[in-house]
């Protein structure tokens, strides 16, 4: 790792629309890296700490947090307009809107080729098993699938960065495969537009700013919720139309592929001891325990930031449990292996290795340990004076975070609204919170 790589800023796919934000503080309390503060009545994001997980997006009551995706109109810049569709996309629709109907609508919208994303997954089954078996570092190996988890590890668990599996995810494998197919057939690459429908913000960020020096062949990322609305509207207005191109190219993905983005998608194909953990609090809890050296003997970890993995993606419509059920049904009807497995293998094996993930630890107090120690001691002293209610009325996610902000000169004790209120009306405040809370320790 060199310094340039370390300093390369994260690309973010989440943005706060200041004009809409009401500064309610809901988002700052759910952020797993405490990257948000309320300042001047608006939520503000610390760009070095944000991991694009979308927890803030989920809780925003006024939709002030938006996902920076590509306009669908961008596809018309290209002669060949390829859409990579994850299985989840199809699973959002009620059963009466069949796969063929959805495909017909998408072709009518201007795409020239539709491909399922998880075709590339089958290739990874043996690769993951081999990778873990040959891995010389400390286990468990951590899956590289979920980009929000990869960034969480870079920032909050930097010592695990070297455990992240250095194999690119199925999406990138599939994208590489199609680009290669067009190139092989003599199509100039500037005519080829590869687009991906994303269930989350983290995948956008990962495509626009991948790990290391990798450049994704994906030319644009389309918001799944937007595309869902467009497809559903077309269906409501025009009903199911016949489309002559109505086939999904290489559509027969395997049951392994279709389940890849579900909880257990990777862990179940692993032949050693593996765990599948979903949702941000669960992932953090487990990584903390791993860091405590309390967990031994696990070979592989599938970690997904969203509850129910990608079924719970922030841009996925419909209920995540219903989506899981539909995916399971799809899987039952599919073969165990993808029909293009061997072809993928021949074309893509060279693409699979991923560059190492660089750690980017948060500097909490100061890079100089002596100053850091002084600041930490001061922050602990301040914390004893703060009410320990974590109301976030100061604009920080917790009393602990406010104390840290104070010692780093980003806030003052005056920010504590509770202490003000206590000074103004001690009887009332003590009646609610008790006398003890306001005794300085």
């Amino acid at each position, binding site marked *: 790792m060199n310094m340039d790589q370390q300093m390369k800023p994260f690309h973010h796919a989440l943005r706060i629309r200041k004009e809409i934000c009401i500064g309610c503080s809901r988002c700052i309390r759910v952020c797993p890296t405490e990257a948000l503060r309320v300042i001047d009545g608006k939520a503000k994001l610390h760009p070095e700490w944000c991991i694009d997980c979308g927890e803030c997006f989920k809780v925003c009551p006024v939709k002030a947090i938006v996902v920076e995706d590509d306009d669908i109109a961008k596809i018309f810049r290209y002669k060949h307009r390829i859409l990579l569709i994850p299985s989840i996309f199809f699973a959002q629709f009620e059963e009466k809107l069949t796969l063929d109907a959805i495909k017909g609508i998408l072709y009518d919208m201007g795409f020239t080729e539709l491909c399922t994303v998880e075709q590339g997954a089958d290739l990874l089954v043996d690769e993951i098993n081999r990778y873990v078996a040959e891995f010389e570092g400390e286990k468990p190996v951590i899956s590289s699938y979920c980009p929000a988890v990869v960034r969480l590890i870079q920032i909050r668990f930097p010592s695990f960065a070297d455990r992240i599996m250095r194999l690119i995810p199925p999406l990138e494998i599939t994208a590489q495969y199609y680009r290669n197919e067009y190139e092989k057939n003599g199509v100039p690459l500037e005519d080829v537009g590869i687009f991906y429908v994303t269930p989350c913000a983290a995948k956008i960020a990962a495509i626009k700013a991948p790990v290391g020096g990798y450049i994704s062949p994906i030319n644009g990322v389309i918001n799944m919720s937007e595309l869902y609305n467009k497809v559903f509207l077309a269906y409501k207005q025009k009903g199911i139309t016949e489309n002559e191109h109505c086939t999904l190219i290489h559509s027969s993905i395997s049951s392994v592929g279709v389940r890849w983005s579900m909880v257990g998608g990777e862990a179940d194909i692993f032949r050693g001891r593996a765990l599948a953990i979903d949702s941000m609090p669960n992932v953090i809890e487990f990584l903390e325990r791993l860091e405590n*050296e309390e967990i031994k003997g696990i070979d592989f970890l599938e970690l997904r930031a969203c509850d129910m993995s990608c079924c719970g993606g922030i841009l996925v419509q419909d209920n995540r449990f219903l989506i899981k059920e539909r995916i399971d049904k799809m899987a039952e009807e599919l073969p165990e292996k993808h029909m293009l497995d061997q072809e993928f293998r021949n074309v893509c094996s060279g693409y699979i290795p991923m560059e190492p993930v660089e750690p980017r630890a948060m500097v*909490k107090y*100061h890079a100089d340990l002596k100053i850091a120690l002084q600041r930490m001691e001061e922050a602990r002293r301040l914390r004893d004076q703060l009410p320990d209610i974590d109301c976030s009325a100061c604009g920080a996610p917790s009393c602990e975070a406010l104390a840290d902000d104070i010692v780093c000169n980003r806030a003052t004790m005056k920010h504590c609204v509770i202490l003000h209120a206590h000074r103004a009306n001690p009887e009332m405040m003590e009646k609610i919170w008790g006398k003890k809370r306001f005794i300085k320790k």
Partner: protein
Amino acid sequence: MNLSFQIQGGDFTSAGTASSQVRRTLKELGVDASVIKRVVVALYEAEVNVVAHAYRGTISAEISPDKVFMKLVDEGPGITDIEKAMTPGFSTASQEVREMGFGAGMGLPNICRNADVFNIHSVPGKGTTVEITIQFK
């Protein structure tokens, strides 16, 4: 920066609290991850030893800019033969403790291996004191 903890003998559910808190503190300070790992391994082993063998104990951790000094003082049966206890594989842990995945007998040598300075002092029938120093550089 001083941290202190109380431990109860037999309370395996809370074993690891001290090492977890010390780990978190060192991480927040930006101490090198490989150093933190040694601290966690050594302190966790020592902490589990108190839970598994003693009646009760206290742990203190003193963090300075260049090192962490940890002291575990317990009231318990003590160790009669420290040299023997330092032998890899030697264990006096009961079957019950072993069934919980502890007491494989690697405790003391493992602590010693991860520490820069390791002191152990024991009075049979009274208790044991363990001191661990780990340098940051």
